[in-house]
């Protein structure tokens, strides 16, 4: 599970639990809210959720690891979600990936050592008409080309100089 140094403030969860009090099947929304608050799902939080909902940790962990949306590890300060939906795929996402791997030694799902950038592969952001698309920290980058992408990244993020 996630490595992390500074302590996690569990009180953030109080109103989440209040919101879903007595609701059936609330585990997933609660995990989503938790991730909104912490950016990922720290072990302490998983344990707390299990305790509060009266369900085994094994179940919480099983669910949290099943869905792609949940992160059990810290992520980078900047997050690039690269769309590999069919439309984007045929319009060049693979080659964008190669460029990224080439320049940042980053495979999808990985984070740079300096914790600056996380690259994720997602299937369809629903902007197929702008394919290939990526989302950098929530901003949509449409009709991408390798050099465009690399330039934007350089501009946006000061990364420990990639080898």
């Amino acid at each position, binding site marked *: 599970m996630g490595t992390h140094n500074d302590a996690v403030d569990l009180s953030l969860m109080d109103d989440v639990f209040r919101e879903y009090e007595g609701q*059936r*099947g*609330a*585990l*997933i*929304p609660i*995990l*989503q809210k938790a991730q909104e608050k912490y950016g990922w799902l720290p072990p302490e939080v998983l344990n707390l959720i299990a305790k509060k909902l009266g369900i085994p940790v094994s179940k919480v962990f*099983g*669910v949290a690891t*099943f*869905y*792609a*949306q*949940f992160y059990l590890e810290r992520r980078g300060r900047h997050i690039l979600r690269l769309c*590999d*939906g*069919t*439309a*984007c*795929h*045929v*319009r060049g996402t*693979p*080659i964008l990936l*190669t*460029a990224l791997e*080439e*320049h940042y030694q980053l495979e999808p799902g990985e984070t740079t050592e300096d914790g600056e950038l996380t690259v994720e592969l*997602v*299937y*369809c*952001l*629903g*902007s*197929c*008409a*702008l*394919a290939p*698309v990526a989302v950098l920290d929530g901003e*949509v980058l*449409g009709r991408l*080309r*390798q*050099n465009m992408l*690399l330039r934007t990244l350089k501009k946006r993020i000061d990364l420990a100089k990639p080898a």
Partner: protein
Amino acid sequence: MSVHASPSLTFESPEQGPDSQRRCVAVCMGTGCSSSESALVRERLREALVEQGLDAEVEVRRTGCFGFCEQGPITVVYPEEVFYTRVKPRDAQKIVEEHIVGGRPVEKLLYKDPLREQPVQKWHEIGFYGKQKRILLGNCGVIDPENIDHYIAKAGYQALEKCLTQLEPTDVIEEVTKSGLRGRGGGGFPTGVKWGLARKTPRWPKYVICNADEGDPGAFMDRSLLEGDPHSVIEGMIIAAYAIGAEYGYIYVRAEYPLAVRRLRIALEQARERGFLGENIFNSGFSFDLQIKEGAGAFVCGEETALMNSIMGERGQPWPRPPYPAVSGLWDQPSNVNNVKSYAYAPAIIRNGADWFKQIGTPKSPGTAVFALTGMVNRTGLIEVPMGITLREIIFDIGGGIPHGKQFKAVQTGGPLGGCLPEEYLDVPIDFDSLQAAGSVMGSGGMVIADESTCMVEFARFFLKFACEESCGKCPPCRIGSLRMLEILTRITEGEGRLEDLDELKRLSKGLQRGSLCGLGQLAPSPVLSVLRHFEDEFRAHIVDKACPARKCKALITYEVVAELCTGCMVCGRNCAANAITGEKLQPHVIDPELCERCGLCYEVCNFDAIVIKSPR
């Protein structure tokens, strides 16, 4: 929750009605256009109007997707329906000054059809819309999805009123059954029959569930519908609930659709305020409410039993049927799961009658089909066409053919669980059964066009990789079998393939189809099989000649400099992270195939087309 004894179907302030002759500039605020600054466009338009002191008379309206995302951001000026494309924020000024004030449409913002020399003025004259028939998307681009009055003005919630005040639940089911509506999730199961089954089970509570977990990469029909006309889906669900006897419902929306979720939230609130949701709707004694459940990123949750597990907070794994949801679904109660579109048809069918619906489309697949037309085609976007139209019409008349004069190669429908069809199938009429016969499927509406530059082997591998990553892992055929297939396909794209692999792929496919627990595993081999069936020569090229005809598979291609064209500008060298490109200034450069990573950056940046991609043969 505020519950009105009797909800009103009249506007609270009529002049806001979209049909009013009042001038209105509609700006698309769908995900597509939003991602190219349409919000800013809207803002600028407002400001410009204020400057002109016209903000009182002219409404700037937020609308859902027009479908023609390719040309986004879209802006339409009503009532003339002048259709502006690729509108930048700075164009707002012009639109207001020249068009609104001056009455002269802004020439340079009009859509230029590659097939016609005159720019097209009006929305419906554009080829892209020519052959469309917009039932579900009828309100998209017309009404403000965040304003229930707009929906009501378009006869919204009248069907619901009719059901609750004039029809017995069984009448509703009969009408829907008579209409011949088939499930738009891809299964094509008769919706009316499905509702009938759920009604038959004498256990309460019952649930209606809307499957908006639009997982197919390259599909965004459901998203656009939810963003552009959320009430039609909600109304459809309430009608279904009434027919089945359910008192609660869920809309399971894909996590990646924040805008759709927001619009749904607003719509639900407004529907509750007006009493369309809640207790004793239309004084009929019937009560119903529903909530949104956001998915958490699992394609398999598009499978109805997995979806219900997910709603219950479990791992999204399917269960073997029986028990069928109609008998024992959510929390072991009778449940009805339909796709977004299936529900959205219901109001129209109830309003206009089964016969009206049946005369659209084909006898066995009545109604329309909504597709997200994407890939290597001139006009990409969201389209709605009558069933029975041919693939060729869609791709060439609506889609405007293949860009850059390239050759059409294949059309993929049905997403990762669908299939690819080549040229010779282009005249197949679109409907559930014909597509199936041709070796593909209707699916939920993704339609991706591949041109000569697409490697079909890699294409097949792409879909299988997706299925493999999305396998829930419950049953061995899918969990392990899909990986074994992927390993073979990867091998082939890397030039390590053997001819026996083709039979092995077929054998494994059979195993998955026959043995897998749910649709995901059973259909995962479909893309591979269809490619094997229609493009076996490409497979052979990879295996026998170690060549990638489309020059896409990294292991089988080389980048080379055409000395005659190279000016030695050194741009490529500077961009090459692998330092594979050498050469003196102003001298032709050379690429070392050993060092080259095939990232294609040089190809991209060369201003003289001096770099070519080569593959044997």
